[in-house]
C-alpha cells in the first residue's frame, strides 16, 4: 500500500493532529515505512480465524444500572484550562 502526502494530510485532519507543512514529506516517508512493515500481514492466510479482541476471550462484565459515583464537578474542573460558572469554555461554535 503506497501512501502519499495528501493521504497523510487527510489522516491528520481525521485524527485532529496538525502536521506543519514543512514536516508533511518526512512524516509521509516514515508512515509509509511503518505501513510497509505491517503489510507483511496481507500474505498470511487467516481464512475463517475468529478475530481476537481480548487475549482471554473475556466478555464485557455488566453491573447494575445504579449511580455509584458522587458529583465531583469542582475537582474535575479545577484542572481544566478554562471554565466559567461550572461550564467548560471553548471558542464560539455557532455564528
Amino acid at each position: 500500500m503506497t501512501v502519499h502526502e495528501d493521504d497523510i494530510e487527510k489522516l491528520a485532519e481525521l485524527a485532529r493532529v496538525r502536521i506543519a507543512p514543512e514536516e508533511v514529506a518526512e512524516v509521509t516517508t516514515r508512515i509509509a515505512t511503518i505501513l510497509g512493515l505491517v503489510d507483511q500481514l496481507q500474505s498470511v492466510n487467516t481464512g475463517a480465524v475468529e478475530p481476537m479482541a481480548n487475549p482471554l476471550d473475556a466478555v464485557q462484565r455488566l453491573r447494575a444500572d445504579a449511580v455509584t459515583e458522587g458529583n465531583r464537578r469542582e475537582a474535575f474542573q479545577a484542572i481544566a484550562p478554562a471554565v466559567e460558572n461550572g461550564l467548560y469554555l471553548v471558542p464560539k461554535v455557532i455564528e
Partner: protein
Amino acid sequence: MHDLSVAELALGLRAKHFSSTELTRHSLARINTLDTHYNSFITVDETGALAAAAQADARLANGDTSPLLGIPLAHKDIFCTEGLRTSCGSKMLDNFIPPYDATVTRRLREAGTVLLGKTNMDEFAMGSSNETSFYGAAQNPWNTQRVPGGSSGGSAAAVAARLAPLATGTDTGGSIRQPAAFCGITGLKPTYGRVSRLGMIAYASSLDQGGPMARSAEDCALLLNVMAGFDPLDSTSSERPTEDYSAGLEKPLAGLRIGLPREFFGAGLEANTHTRIRDALALLEQQGATLVDINLPHTELSIPTYYIIAPAEASTNLSRYDGVRYGHRCEAPRDLHDLYTRSRQEGFGDEVKRRILVGTYALSAGYYDAYYRKAQQVRRLIRQDFLDAFTKVDIIAGPTTPGPAFGIGAKTSDPLAMYLEDVYTLAVNLAGLPAMSVPAGHVEGLPVGLQLIGQHFAEARLLNVAHQLQQASDWHLQAPPEANV
C-alpha cells in the same frame, strides 16, 4: 541500607534498626545526589514521602506487620496519583494533577508504602528507549551513554541505581521486561487483567498491564501481592482470586519442563547474549529442569500485528486529549477546530503523532478489514502457538532482547530499527501471558535479561523459577558502578 532486599528492609524496620523516615531520607538523598546522572525521576515528592514515612512509623509502632509498610517506592509516571502531577512523559499532561488515584496507587498507599516520586518514561509509553520522554532521555546506570530501555526506563534505572528498592511499571509490548533486562533488574508483566488498569493512563487497552520491578523475584512477589487483584472499576479486570505470590518461591525445579522457542535463538540474537542465556538455562537444568526445543511459528508476525493493534487502540484512546477538560491547550485558538488540532500538535511528540496516524489509517473506512481485523486474526494464531506449546512444556524461556542496551541516539532516526528490538516481547502481550525478565550476567559490562514466559495466571510459577535461578546465581545482586560513586 540501599543494598538490602525488601524483606530485609521490612525486618530492619520492625526490629527498629532504622525507621521508615530514616530509610526514606536515605533514598531521597541518593536521588538528590545521583539522579543528575540518570534522569530517572520526572517528579520527586519529598514532602509527601516524609509525611507517608511518618505515618508508616506510627503504624509500625502500633505493631502493624503489613509486609510493605514503610518501604519506599517509585511509580512510573503513568499511574495517576491524586494531588501529584502525572505527566505520562508528555507535554500534553505536563500540568495534569489527577483528581483521583489509580487502583495500583491506592492499594500501595494503603499498604503503607512510601511514594518517593514519579519515574521517567517514553511519552505515553510509546517507545523502547525512554528517549521519547518530554523530560529528556533517562540514562542506563551501567553506562550513561546507553539507554535504560523503555518505556518503563526511569523505573528500571531507579531500581538498578539503588535509588528505590521497588518501582511500578507497565508493559504493553515489553515495557517492563526490556528495561529490566537493559538495567539488570527483575521485572514481571502479569497476565492481562491481573492488575487493575483503572487510573493507569491508557495506551493500547487490550495489551496494557501494570507490574512490579525490583532487584529480585522475591521482592517482585511482595510488590505483586499488593498490586494484583480484581477491581470492579476496570472492565477487563479478572475476577479470578489471587494467590500469595511469595508462598511458592522455594519449590524445587525438579521435573520442570522449559520450552526454548527456536524462533528466539535465530540469526537476530547477538552471539554473546546467546551465550549468557545458555549459561542461565544450564543453571536451571542443573536444578532438575528439562530443556525442550519448541516452535512458536508466528513469532515474526508479532511485530506487524502489534504495530497495527497498538496504534489503532492508541489513536482511539488518545482522542480524549482535546485541550478542553484537562491537559495542554494552545494559546488563543481561532475556533474549536483550531483548539483541537493545535493543542494536539503542540502537546504530542513525534512518535505519538506517528502512532496516532498509523492507527487512524488502520481503522479508517476501507482499510479496517485489511489491517485491524486481519491483525486480530493473526493475534489469535499467535496465542494458539503458545497454547500448543504449553501442552508440552510448563514454561517458555529465551532472551528478553536481541542484545544489551544500545547507545542513546543510536536508533532514534529509524523507528523500524527500534520496533524490531521488541521481537521477543510483543507476542507475550498479544497472547495476554505473564512473563518476566531476570538478570543473566553481562556482555561488555552491560546486563543481559533471561525471559521466562508462563501460562495464563501462572505468575507464582514464574516467580518460583526466577527465585530458584537467583538462589543459584548472583547476577541480580550486582550493582552498577556509578551507584557507588
